[in-house]
């Protein structure tokens, strides 16, 4: 599983980076979104992989931490997802307004 996930992160990152380096605003937005998928997974991997070990503790006995998926990276990913959603929205609107004001969708507002 580890190798698959690492490969997945790599491919998402590479695609995202490629798009981020493109000259069209919409490409950049998509690129950043792809990169944020990759980074979210990356954060998750910092808690190491757990299959079938969700972070829901029992009510009765003190839980054995080793039996659960590390909850902290998950909480961090949740925060990161929300923030990257917000930023995607903002960037989208900025690019729409920029498109309106500059008349083209080049990231620099003018064709080189």
């Amino acid at each position, binding site marked *: 599983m580890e190798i698959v996930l690492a490969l997945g992160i790599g491919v998402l990152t590479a695609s995202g980076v490629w798009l981020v380096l493109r000259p069209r605003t919409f490409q950049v937005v998509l690129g950043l979104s792809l990169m944020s998928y990759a980074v*979210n997974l990356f954060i998750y991997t910092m808690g*190491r992989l757990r299959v079938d070990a969700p972070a829901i503790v029992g009510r009765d006995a003190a839980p054995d931490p080793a039996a659960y998926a590390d909850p902290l990276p998950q909480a961090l990913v949740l925060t990161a997802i929300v*923030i990257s959603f917000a930023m995607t929205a903002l960037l989208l609107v900025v690019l729409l307004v920029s498109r309106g004001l500059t008349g083209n969708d080049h990231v620099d507002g003018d064709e080189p």
Partner: protein
Amino acid sequence: MTGVDGLLLSILVLPFAGSILAAFLPTAARNAAALLSGAVALAGLILVALLYPAVADGTAVRGEIAWMPSLGLSLVIRLDGLSWLFSTLVLGIGALVVLYARYYMSPEDPVPRFFSFLLAFTGSMLGLVLSGNLVQLAFFWELTSLFSFLLIGYWHHNRAARDSARMALLTTAGGGLCLFAGVLLLGNIVGSYDLDRVLAAGDLIRSSGLYGPALALILIGAFTKSAQFPFHFWLPKAMAAPTPVSAYLHSATMVKAGIFVLIRLWPVLSQTDEWYVLVSSAGLLTLLVGAWAAIFQQDLKGLLAYSTISHLGLITLLLGLGSPLAAVAAIFHVVNHATFKASLFMAAGIIDHETGTRDLRRLSGLYRFMPITATLAMIAAAAMAGVPLLNGFLSKEMFLSESLQRHSGTVIDQALPVLATLASAFAVLYSVRFIHQTFFGPPPTELARTPGEAPRWMRVPIEILVLACLLVGIIPAMTIGPVLSSAVRSVLGDATPSYSLAIWHGFTWPMLMSLAALVLGTIAYLRFGKMLNRTEGAPLLRRFHTRRIFDGALAFTASAARVLERRLGTRRLQPQLRLLLFVAIAAGLLPVMRHGYSLGGMEGTVVDPGFAVIWAVGGACALGAAWRAKYHRLTALVLMGGAGLVSCISFVWLSAPDLALTQLLVETVTTVLLLLGLRWLPQRSAALAPAKGAAFPFRRAVDAAIAVAAGLGLGLLAYAALTRAPPADAVSRFYMERAYPDAGGTNVVNVILVDFRSFDTLGEITVLAIVALTVFALLRRFRPAPESLGLPAQQRLQNAYDDAQSGREVGDTLVDYLMIPRVLMEWLFPFIVALALYLWVRGHDMPGGGFIAGVTMATALILQYMAAGTRSVEARLRVQPVRWIGIGLLLAVLTGAAALIVGRPFLTTYFSYLDLPLFGRVPAASALLFDLGVFVLVVGATALMLIAIAHQSIRKPLSRAGES
């Protein structure tokens, strides 16, 4: 603070206080400003005079105020013979200049400002000469540059004034920075910036490895300030200043600041070969160049300016020679030059004032119109030429006598007597020319008005100065003697040589050289005087158009800087992102290269084929999105949705249901959002793409390399981490152990979000709120691209069809299209609301929580908008997202702040089990309330963003609104 401290401090404080006071006087208050300034100068003079007994014997008095004690920096006001002499000059000539300026300045000028600057300059000069600390000295040094800049540029409506002010500023302030660096080195060598300690550490300084750099830097400072060749160019240009300023700055103060520093540091810096070579050669060159150039000036003030340069060179040369006697002569000449040069500038000012010109060629025979001024000017000029019985003669005799001594055995020594005589002859020549051209000969023609004597009180300053020239020249021992002695003693201390200030030493070599100079100079004038009127600029120096060189250098600096800025920087986004990623990859790579890439020993989990298949799809989606995003935005968007779904499934697989749920919902909302945006992005087509440059394939290759490197890098880091055991005592153990007993939740992830680390969540929802507000504000003034203004092509066609068809109305296609889905989507609304509430309530124990609930709720709203259209929904639902955001934020904050009431830290949760009738034992956690705030805010923010974009479709653009 002792009495002496108080006196010392008030000498320094008075001018600055006066300056501030003058600045606030009304523009027309010429007399008040002059009176104030005069009073300040006189008061200062009296204070200084009162302190003379304390320094007469060559010792120093100090007043000290702690400033930055931990850096060894104190405000030390140190008065000794030398600084007494300089202070007296600064204040005395300052007082005379004030009086003169009162009459010189036109009532139209904002005179209070002039006096304010003048006083501030006086204060800075005093601060400089009274500094008992090297840093403080540099501090006031720069202040003199600054205020001289303001004074020179006083008539800033005049271009010449502006330019020369800037030139003076750049030269002297730049030199000042060097001086600053130099004194810091000096302080570093000595271990203290205190002047007394520095002066006591001469041997240490001269033997230090830093001596050379320190000396060079200090000399650059001193030479720029004192207009030594090749830094002399700013001084003649500074003649654009009002004449009182010239009289003040170029006789007693500004230019003498450099000389002052050379004298001040003479005991510790001189006596080395470096000093001798650098200082004396600069002085000698300046002496000759200045005098030579002065001969050819046609402007009265220009002649005086070059003469000043020459005399400054003379003083510098004397200091450079390194012998104590030469130093005495230098100090003496400082005083003498100040008096005669100040009076000459004032006289020149009167001539300018009365005739309207300063051109020597146009002036003639003014003696008959202004005999008193003429007489005064003649005496002062004679002093400048070194005529016996005047003060200039005495110090020049000392100079000539020194020039005959052996100092180093270099070529300078050999040539010095001849060159000194030659320079003296030049001085005679330009002095004679100055007097003769101006006051003698036929009456002037073509003058704008008939000249006359200046007002009585305008002449007084000149009279006083000329009197001083005479008195010092005739009875030096009774006038300047004691003062000079204490000044010299304060510098040379035990090394003070014996010297005599008698006017007659018999027929000595210096006497003969003086006479030779007088004769040579006069003959030269008689022979070449007429010819001089026809020259433009000094031969040999003519090619040095200093202004042009200076301006050219500045222009070159600016344009070179612009080229460099473009080369080293960029304003385009793609190169910036390339660099950013490159730097990040390099930064991440370097530690790996140092420590080596290694995998950990943890046994991995078995690869699940399903997972691999899913990721094959996900990777393909990501690559596909990257491939298609340029011209097929919708396709790319759908593919990105696929990649998102894959990462969502991965979270499920990897035991993170909360993440999966969140990612899924966000995914959906993001898709809607981007589609809303696509409406406003006109179609791109490959056919319309601009031609690509030759660098295009290269750039793509670079981008591909960066992308692959980034992907490899992050993937390898992830894999390296995944194969290692997690840190043994990670903090997450605490969360799992405490989540239920202390925070009452079994979903540890959610407990972290709303309790352990609820502060993060508060920040996160704040981000969401801010972004929503920003989106809203931005779209308020949205102006779509022209191509997007109209309806999308599909709608136009469908409308046209509806219109053409009988029995149909425009919009029917849409109504038919949505009729059935709309019913279903409306009836789903309450169920989705119920689901949202359920997700919120159970979040603490199971996957869910405020955010997830909020996005679900927002999706329900968006579905209504899609089904029924904006107007229709808003006719029925009162949507006030901004208020929702406010309420949600407030709810979260207040829940957190409630803990403060009972003295617990912010966001401390309250949690217990309540036994309620009917309900039984239920958990009551304030975290639930906090999560409600999150819920409400997320609904508001998400809706606000989506709806604000959606609203653009139904808004009338201004152009159309105006037409209708």
